[in-house]
């Protein structure tokens, strides 16, 4: 359908031109990183570096993945994967259970629990970083996957979301389940969980990106390079002092670090947008 508000002629092309300019400017840093990951070190250290990809792609990525600087990047990718999946799946599981309890039961102290959980909304780990680190250290969680995952799932955003969703589920369904003599957990597994599939998927996309992109927490609790995640590990690849950084390998690592979340966003765009809008409501 064509509107009548200035969409023809010059204005039309100006609009496309503006959009293309925006896309190019926003994509430029990534293009440059990609080019840097395909050329050799001498081509970078004598500026200006080339603007088109070179022929060192395989060499640079192989070197990054298999040997890296402190630790092979393949290892860091694996650690990031475990962390991101752990955070996404862990948070979804505990939140589904507690939202079910809060919405579908009346029990003493329900409101207290409700508020205890909801006070945690929006309070990022960055704010209570030193004491949280001390707790993790005392529990022996430094350099471990539970240490990377657990402190980051201690918030109620997902619980809040599932609660909102459960409130919109028609009462007749629970009523029917009760009349049929179904136990609460049957209702939860057979009816509520399948109905929440889309919400779970949308939340998964958001939480996966959130987990993958964590920086400060892994920086603190992984002192062993073997446990570094890729996002925090890039910084560790820069030499201290005056040595020249291995730019092609570092830039290959940067590209590898952004690939999984970018693929998730692009292939699951609908779920991603839905998740964004809902988790901010």
């Amino acid at each position: 359908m064509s509107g009548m508000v200035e969409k023809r002629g010059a204005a039309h092309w100006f609009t496309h031109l503006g959009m293309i300019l925006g896309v190019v400017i926003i994509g430029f840093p990534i293009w440059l990183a990609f080019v840097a990951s395909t050329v050799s070190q001498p081509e970078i250290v004598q500026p200006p570096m080339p603007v088109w990809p070179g022929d060192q792609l395989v060499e640079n990525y192989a070197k990054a993945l298999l040997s890296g600087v402190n630790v092979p990047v393949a290892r860091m990718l694996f650690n990031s994967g475990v962390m991101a999946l752990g955070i996404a799946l862990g948070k979804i599981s505990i939140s589904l259970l507690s939202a079910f309890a809060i919405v579908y039961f009346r029990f003493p102290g329900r409101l207290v629990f409700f508020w205890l959980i909801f006070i945690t909304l929006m309070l990022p780990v960055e704010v209570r970083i030193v004491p949280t680190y001390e707790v993790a250290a005392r529990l022996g969680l430094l350099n471990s996957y539970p240490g990377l995952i657990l402190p980051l799932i201690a918030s109620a955003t997902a619980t809040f979301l599932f609660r909102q969703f459960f409130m919109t589920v028609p009462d007749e369904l629970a009523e029917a389940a009760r009349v049929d003599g179904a136990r609460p957990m049957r209702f939860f597994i057979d009816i509520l969980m399948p109905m929440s599939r889309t919400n779970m998927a949308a939340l998964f996309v958001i939480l996966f990106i959130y987990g993958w992109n964590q920086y400060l927490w892994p920086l603190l609790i992984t002192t062993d390079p073997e446990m570094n995640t890729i996002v925090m590990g890039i910084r560790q690849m820069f030499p201290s002092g005056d040595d020249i950084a291995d730019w092609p390998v570092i830039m290959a690592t940067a590209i590898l670090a952004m690939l999984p979340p970018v693929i998730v966003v692009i292939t699951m765009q609908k779920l991603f947008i839905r998740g964004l809008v809902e988790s901010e409501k």
Partner: protein
Amino acid sequence: MEKRVTFKGWLLPLVLLTPQLLITAVFFFYPAGQAVWQSLFIPDPFGLKSQFVGLGNFEFLLNDPYYRASFATTAVFSISVTLVSMGVALFLALLADRLIKGSGAYRTLLIWPYAVAPAVAGVLWMFMFNNRVGVVAWYLGVLGYDWNHVLNGREAMGLVVVASSWGRISYNFLFFLAGLQAIPKSVIEAAAIDGARFWTRFRTIVWPLLSPTTFFLMVVNIVYAFFETFGVIHTITAGGPQQSTTILVYKVYADGFVGQDLGSSAAQSVILLIVVGLLTVVQFRFVERRVHY
């Protein structure tokens, strides 16, 4: 809001709540409580015992020129990030909204920087402006401008602002575009028929109708600039030069882990807790209002 139909029993819901309560207690309430407790003490240099100082840490902080400077730095930084990322996003969203076809394709091309971690964005921008190998720094040199954000505080601030705003444009673009598309086209066309030009239509119709989105994005972006940009700062400037990019969250880290000044770091955490609390209240009041529209 309450459910009419509920299940009986109290043991099952408690069991269901246990995992979340346990994790929240251990990794949230206990550390938050510790932060408040530690903020009232000064530990001795060997960490053997600590001395109760009441609000001494807070008093010291509020009189500390470095802490005050960090507050000012955070204000400049977060306002700049909010303005830059929202301004560019609104411009692109206005353009995309004018397109009948193809806005979906542009949206795909514009949203993926959202997925790039702030720390990785930091590395990308630091690479472009590196004074040895950076392409942009090199071309600026050709033009006669000697870029060096390692020494120049203003340039360092400019660079961390741009690097932090970059990925955020995607996010703001999505919300602005959704907000624009929710405005009935008939209203705008009616104004066009009455002879209102683009700028007039924007000022009198679009901007007011978009204001809930704008306000929401403002709060969310300030929260982002306060707390989620640590990776950008740490990779590009490490708070320097001369603390010119030391935002509050960075200072909590620098004083607590690098400087080992636990009392002061805890007091700073408490102040940040209060800031987040205030921002949350603002957001919730706004969300409530929006729901009742």
